[in-house]
């Protein structure tokens, strides 16, 4: 389905962000928000709040012909946190090394077979063992296969997958190398495990969404947001549900990128919601990626995300005294008193201090009076609460910058010529931004921007986020092979000289194939990691090892210039 202007209405993109408390929805046309809606999140049945938003959008716009409906959903995270996951048959080939049996989410079945760091087959897997693993996991409908260094050679993972398929034909088999193409056996195994464990739940959800839309006569393609700020067609996400963890902060980060236009500044963004503030780091107008994947239920995964920090301070954060010390958050006891809530909050302080106009100012002043010590005016109390909140946020910003500065570097030049991260600007979005961001900026002595409609940056981000994909190509010219882990391929290198440039071109080709297979338009790509080493044996150069990770650049859809699918 190509992008045909006019056919699907007025170039309208529907974005939905399902948060912990509220679900936001927007319709964006030509980069502008046409309509927006906020509704409580129906935790027990997410489909319900999704449809509430969709129905409202149809009503507001008078159209069912959206170019795309993109969901940033907590469905996967919730399923994992609430233990609403399937038992999976986790089969691993750990080979020699660290003992990870006790640190995986569930007890694995250990198989023989070892691929070394070069991708060489050092010990073969054993079919008999795989068959007994199948018997051991006879009650499981979903299997997971993960091998050490499978990203350097997928053959063993594929062989074991085939044997399991042949023996028990489970509903689904997740493999580590396909779920994540990066080194880190532990994280790949965790990713693949959770991918398998939520597979059935996510697919039921996907089917329900598709059917409900179809019943309403809505035939727009549905996309799901990923933690790296890209989107995936729902049909593809069905096999990679783990990609849909922690999409909330990613949605708002992409939303900020879209609202901020071409501002190439470095700094931070603050998404100040009801209970938390999400801080992201920006370098020259782009959000900085986290070095490690996201963690879920205490287990690190290979799921790529932005470098974010969350602090438990938001508009609805409770302000209270504890042992004569003023505290702000992290708990929330309903909305602000100004909005009819039960207890004094940060929002009440903002209203009482006159920084924002919200709810009933008299109730906000009353909240501050309740909190004030003897002889303290409500204004003084409000300013003390705001100081506390601002200090808490500034401390987290400082911690995030320290973490960024402490990031290990492996090249001499990087360390000697390292430039310090300089904060230039703060971009504030979310409900609490208008009141708090100017105060934070003042304390840090830098400028700030508050984009219009920043309250719905999250849903806006979902609406405009580009579809993305990434692959890791590794070529070993001494062995004469290259692999692309995400595609599960190991191929002979072309004859003749093979340079890093050739590796990029080969990666582009495979990425394009994958994009086509997944029905994604491939626009601008970027190399997110690349390295090249000469291999010397004796005193002779025998080959090169090259790695390049190529990605469809996450970002904002360019209207009219890009096709969706």
């Amino acid at each position, binding site marked *: 389905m190509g992008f045909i202007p006019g056919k699907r209405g007025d170039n309208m993109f529907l974005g939905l962000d399902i948060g912990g408390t509220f679900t936001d929805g927007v319709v964006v046309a030509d980069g502008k928000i046409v309509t927006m809606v906020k509704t409580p999140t129906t935790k027990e049945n997410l489909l319900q709040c999704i449809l509430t938003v969709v129905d409202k959008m149809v009503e507001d716009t008078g159209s069912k012909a959206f170019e795309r409906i993109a969901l940033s959903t907590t469905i996967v995270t919730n399923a994992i946190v609430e233990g609403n996951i399937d038992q999976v048959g986790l089969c691993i080939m750990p080979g020699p090394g660290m003992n990870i049996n006790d640190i995986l989410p569930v007890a694995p079945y250990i198989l023989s077979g070892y691929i070394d760091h070069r991708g060489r087959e050092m010990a073969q897997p054993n079919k008999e063992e795989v068959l007994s693993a199948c018997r051991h996991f006879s009650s499981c409908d979903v299997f997971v296969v993960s091998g050490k260094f499978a990203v350097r050679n997928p053959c063993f993972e594929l062989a074991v997958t085939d044997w399991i398929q042949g023996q028990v034909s489970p509903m689904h088999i997740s493999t580590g190398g396909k779920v994540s193409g990066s080194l880190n056996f532990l994280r790949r195994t965790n990713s693949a495990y959770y991918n398998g464990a939520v597979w059935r739940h996510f697919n039921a959800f996907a089917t329900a969404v598709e059917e409900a839309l179809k019943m309403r006569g809505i035939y727009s393609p549905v996309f799901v947001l990923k933690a790296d700020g890209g989107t995936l067609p729902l049909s593809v996400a069905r096999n990679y549900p783990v990609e849909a963890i922690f999409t909330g902060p990613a949605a708002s980060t992409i939303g900020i990128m879209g609202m901020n236009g071409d501002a190439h500044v470095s700094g931070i963004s603050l998404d100040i919601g009801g209970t938390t503030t999400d801080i992201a780091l920006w370098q020259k107008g782009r959000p900085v990626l986290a070095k490690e994947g996201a963690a879920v239920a205490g287990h690190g995964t290979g799921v790529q995300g932005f470098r974010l920090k969350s602090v438990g301070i938001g508009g609805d954060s409770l302000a209270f005294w504890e042992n004569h010390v003023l505290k702000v958050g992290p708990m929330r006891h309903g909305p602000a008193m100004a909005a009819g809530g039960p207890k004094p909050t940060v929002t009440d302080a903002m209203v009482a201090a006159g920084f924002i106009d919200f709810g009933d100012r008299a109730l906000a002043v009353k909240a501050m009076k309740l909190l004030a010590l003897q002889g303290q005016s409500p204004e003084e109390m409000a300013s003390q609460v705001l100081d506390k909140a601002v200090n808490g946020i500034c401390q987290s910003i400082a911690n995030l910058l320290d973490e960024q500065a402490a990031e290990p570097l*492996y090249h001499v030049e990087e360390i000697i010529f390292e430039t310090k991260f300089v904060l230039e600007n703060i971009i504030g979005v979310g409900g609490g931004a208008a009141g708090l961001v100017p105060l934070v900026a003042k304390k840090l002595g830098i400028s700030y921007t508050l984009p219009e409609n920043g309250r719905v940056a999250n849903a806006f981000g979902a609406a405009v986020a580009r579809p993305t994909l990434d692959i890791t190509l590794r070529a070993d010219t001494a062995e004469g092979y290259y692999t692309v882990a995400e595609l599960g391929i190991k191929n002979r290198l072309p004859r003749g000289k093979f340079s890093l440039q050739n590796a990029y071109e080969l990666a582009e080709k495979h990425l394009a194939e994958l994009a086509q297979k997944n029905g994604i338009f491939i626009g601008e790509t970027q190399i997110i990691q690349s390295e090249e080493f000469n291999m010397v044996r004796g005193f002779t150069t025998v080959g090169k090892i090259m790695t390049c990770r190529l990605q469809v650049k996450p970002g904002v859809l360019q209207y009219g210039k890009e096709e969706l699918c």
Partner: protein
Amino acid sequence: MLNAQRLGLVFFPAFDWAISPTHPEREERLLYTRDQIVEEGLLDMPAIREYKPKIATIQDIERVHVGVPDIASLITNAHLVSAGGAIAAADAVMKKEVQRAFALVRPPGHHAMRIVHGTRGFCTINMEAIMIEYLRKTYGIGKVAIVDTDVHHGDGTQDVFYHDPNTLFISFHQDGRTLYPGTGFTNEMGSPNALGTTLNIPLPPGTTDRGLHEVLDHLIMPILGDFKPDIIINSAGQDNHYSDPLANMAITAQGYARLADTLKADIAVLEGGYSIEDALPYVNVGIVLAMAGMDYSKVIEPNIADCPSQTSSVTHYIKDVIKERQDMWGKKEKLQREAIMKHGEFWQTERSIYYDDEGINELQKERIRLCPHCSGYVIIETKARSSLHYKTAYIGMIPQMACPACLKAAYDMVHKAKKQGNYQHYMVQNKQEDRLEKL
């Protein structure tokens, strides 16, 4: 801190630094180690915290070394980062952020001596020595024990601490008659004021885990217990591995991991090890796990079948070495008294030092005052010749706790030599004032 993590890991593979493109010290050296560490997920372990190296200063380096004509012109930025890596490891331990630390860094340093004319045995400056002097200056550490587990004799570290009774230097290595640098014999025991605090354990080619652990359990550990250091440093070379291309020993990853587990060094610093695919990935994972107090029993090389077993003659030889070294340690006070009696006021030595990387021949004449009040000032006369250069220097060295007489005498000697004018450079390394003076 109660929640201190167990191991601080400063990993710095210097992926953009090589001595030359095909040299064993090239970009590729720690590539497979990086792959293995990352693939295992070691950096995610709660017991392990990764640190970024600092950048050492010239002052940090000149606390140990005297470069001719100056140290800055002889080193690269990589050396500053590698030394800074060792310093970052030391800081993490001293600030009690971690229980112990491993500086898995390159370039290496244990062949670098006090006087530096260039690079020898892949080393230009001595990372452990720079770190130790930093520890002494910053944290007031007194007694230090260094256990050098590289296959090559740590002649640079031995040279730096040869006159220092507060630094116990223990090196086991493949016998100097069969391997570079050809030193590290049992009769090298320290100058008379520090006699016994240099302890060499030459081992025969073909020594296996069994032999190594005999030496560790029956010789090294009891001596460490006896010396009671404030801190234990491990010069953690990995070239005793059975697959190392530059040596002939037969130690495995398990042998190295158990060594780290037994030694419980406060800080380990990587030295050599050039079996970059078959040994380093496994040896480093083993050492990291052992130092972090984690299970290392599954770290076994895929080609372990290639490891030879220990012959009975090697076993007997090692037993004899252990016995002889134990005896020496038992009577070192007596030996020291005899040496001081024999030498009178000055102990001196003359030697030739070869810088294999650059073909420099150095002739060095060294004299130390056997002072009854302090560890004595040192005078070094050095002349270095290569196809390109001829460099000479006359250097006085003043220890931190120098007595007034030694302090004055050192300056007098250097001034007098300068007047005579037989050398190109005249310098005083004044450790009391933490500076190197060019006169």
